């Protein structure tokens, strides 16, 4: 080996430094992963009945009204789980029933490749609107009337089954062969996703009517 002049030009020193830095960063990531996994594990039905706030609530959150409100304490909007609310005519889904619906919806969202047009929690493609708070979107009010439905969930389910017959804009959602059962699952998935605490993303959702298109 060449004569060592200084530690700063010694390959062994830098090799060891690289190993230590990488090891330290990896250990810190793994430690934080354990903490995060605990915090984003799905809550239970009991949490909901007792009003315990979870970052990712349990599947039975579909039995409740969800809103997205400014929290003065946290300085941004947070999902608020309110009173009982009907979902496809019922507000008493058991944990198993709700979980099965949510699971079907998640499988549907993956099987229909939603993420390569839409974003979910802001991740995906940018050809169609973000779905993070899609359950709360004011656009559905118009669709309830347009599709002649009694509730938001029924309007969404109908839209999902026949999207290109009920477009909102020139850029349409294609028909993906979503069945009635699958649509119900996907609506449950969307409602559940809107209850996830996303640290205030998206900001100002549905609160501001733009000045240029002021209505």
């Amino acid at each position, binding site marked *: 080996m060449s004569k060592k002049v200084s530690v700063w030009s010694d*390959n062994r020193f*830098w*090799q060891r*430094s*690289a190993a230590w*830095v*990488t090891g330290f*960063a990896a250990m810190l*990531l793994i430690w934080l*992963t354990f*903490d*995060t*996994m605990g915090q*984003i594990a799905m809550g239970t039905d009991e949490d909901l009945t007792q009003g315990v706030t979870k*970052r*990712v609530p349990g*599947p039975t959150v579909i039995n409740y009204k969800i809103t997205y409100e400014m929290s003065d304490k946290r300085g*941004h909007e947070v999902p608020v789980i309110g009173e009982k609310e009907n979902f496809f005519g019922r507000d008493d889904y058991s944990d198993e029933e709700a979980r099965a619906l949510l699971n*079907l919806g*998640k*499988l549907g969202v*993956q*099987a*229909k*490749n939603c*993420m*390569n*047009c839409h*974003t979910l*929690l802001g*991740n*995906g*493609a*940018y*050809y*169609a*609107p973000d779905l993070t708070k899609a359950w709360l*979107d*004011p*656009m559905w009010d118009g669709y309830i009337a347009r599709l002649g439905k009694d509730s938001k969930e029924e309007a969404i389910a109908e839209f999902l089954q026949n999207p*290109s017959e009920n477009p*909102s*804009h*020139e*850029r*349409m959602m*294609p028909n993906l062969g979503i069945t009635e059962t699958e649509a119900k*699952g*996907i609506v449950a998935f969307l409602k559940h*996703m809107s209850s*996830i605490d*996303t*640290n205030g*993303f*998206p*900001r100002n959702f*549905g609160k*501001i009517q*733009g000045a*240029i298109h002021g209505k």
Partner: protein
Amino acid sequence: MASNFAYESKKLGVMYFAVAVALLGAQILFGLVAGIQFVYPSFLFEVLDFNVARMVHINALVVWLLYAMIGSVYYLLPDETGIDTVGIGLGKLGFYILTAAVTVVVLVYILIQTGPANHTTLWLIQEGREYIEAPRWADIGIVVVVLVFLSNVYLTAMKGERTGILTVLMADLLALAGLYLAGMFYTENISIDQYWWWWVIHLWVEATWEVFVAAIIGWALIKTIGANRQIVEMWLWIEVAMLFGSGILGIGHHYFWIGTPEYWWEIGALFSALEPVPLVAMFVHVMYDWGKEAGIKKGAGEKPMMNNTPAFMWFVGSAFGNFIGAGVWGFFHTLPQMNIYTHGSQFTAAHGHLAFFGAFAMAMIAMFYMAVQGSSGKKDLKMTFNTKMGFILLCLGVVGMAVALTIAGYGQVMVERAQMGATWEGYFVSQYSHWFKQAMGWRLAMGVVTLVGFLYIVYDLLTINKAKINTEQGE
């Protein structure tokens, strides 16, 4: 392509490169389809919808880069170890299996597209998770082929000489392969889903892939300009420390808004703000070594060594493009204060195009030129008119797309996010604003420029050895 290779490993490397070039072509074509759909939404509607075009576009990207990376390792392995790759027969079998699997996966994407909401769809058609849509059967196939590749690298390095560059590659490839496993499970919890999904995507492109190109560029400096190995390897270790030191915890910038706790704001902001530092260092190192080696030779009254100008141009371009695309365009929107508005907008697409091109595509195109030189056995490869046209048009096309998408992203963020509050209606008001539409037109035009640049490069790779400038000099 005439083959003058003394090692079977180099031939296998070239086989991987050939498929990589074909997949790059597919990436550009399907990108154009998606680009056209932004401007003319009825184009191929309910035939080849945006989600399918875009899935093939980004999967072709990931797979061609992986092909080029595996090819690069097989190509440089004999140079580093001094021997031919140990399990070359198994390596070739792996190549054919992988290529057959990729073909089937792409055909299923295009012809079957989606399936019913059950696990069979995820196992046989696609998984609906951006970048790693490959169905589960293909995941398992990929793992098997990668295990063959890894064992080849390890066994060859153990039998032959193990250099510093090879040591870095061995550790890096093990991490790269292992991380793929984090993307191979199903959960109904979307937050947990995306948490592990980023372990694959982020820890690939912003950690292990970056270290990979740093090692490749180090090897190339030794090969093309005769840089001093000891200094190259010292820099490489410093690079590894900085890239992993910032990149591993930089994953926090993906954990701002997916349901994960607030402490990721600080961790993600701090470490991802540090991510450009090693990229600056990489560029400085390349330029420094170039000047230093030339200076030493000139001082001794000799001609500076430079035996492959096309490859070297692409390597220098990559070192700079990595800094601009990944470093600057990434830093634009990495802080949570900014990211709450830009997350999931065309800003992300702008950064994605420029970073993948600058950091990885340019370095891998450089490797194609290294292989072209090797296949002819020429001591010296000089660039032709077509080399320059390919470089200029491809750079212009991709930078043009990135600038157009940045402008589109700016309009989108101001109108949809800041003004309208990110609703369905807000989204479309931004998408139909004049500035956004104009930018999407420019993006499409620049996509066509990219395609023309790609055609120049393919033509040049096939003909550069026979070009006048490279035949006059003799062997």
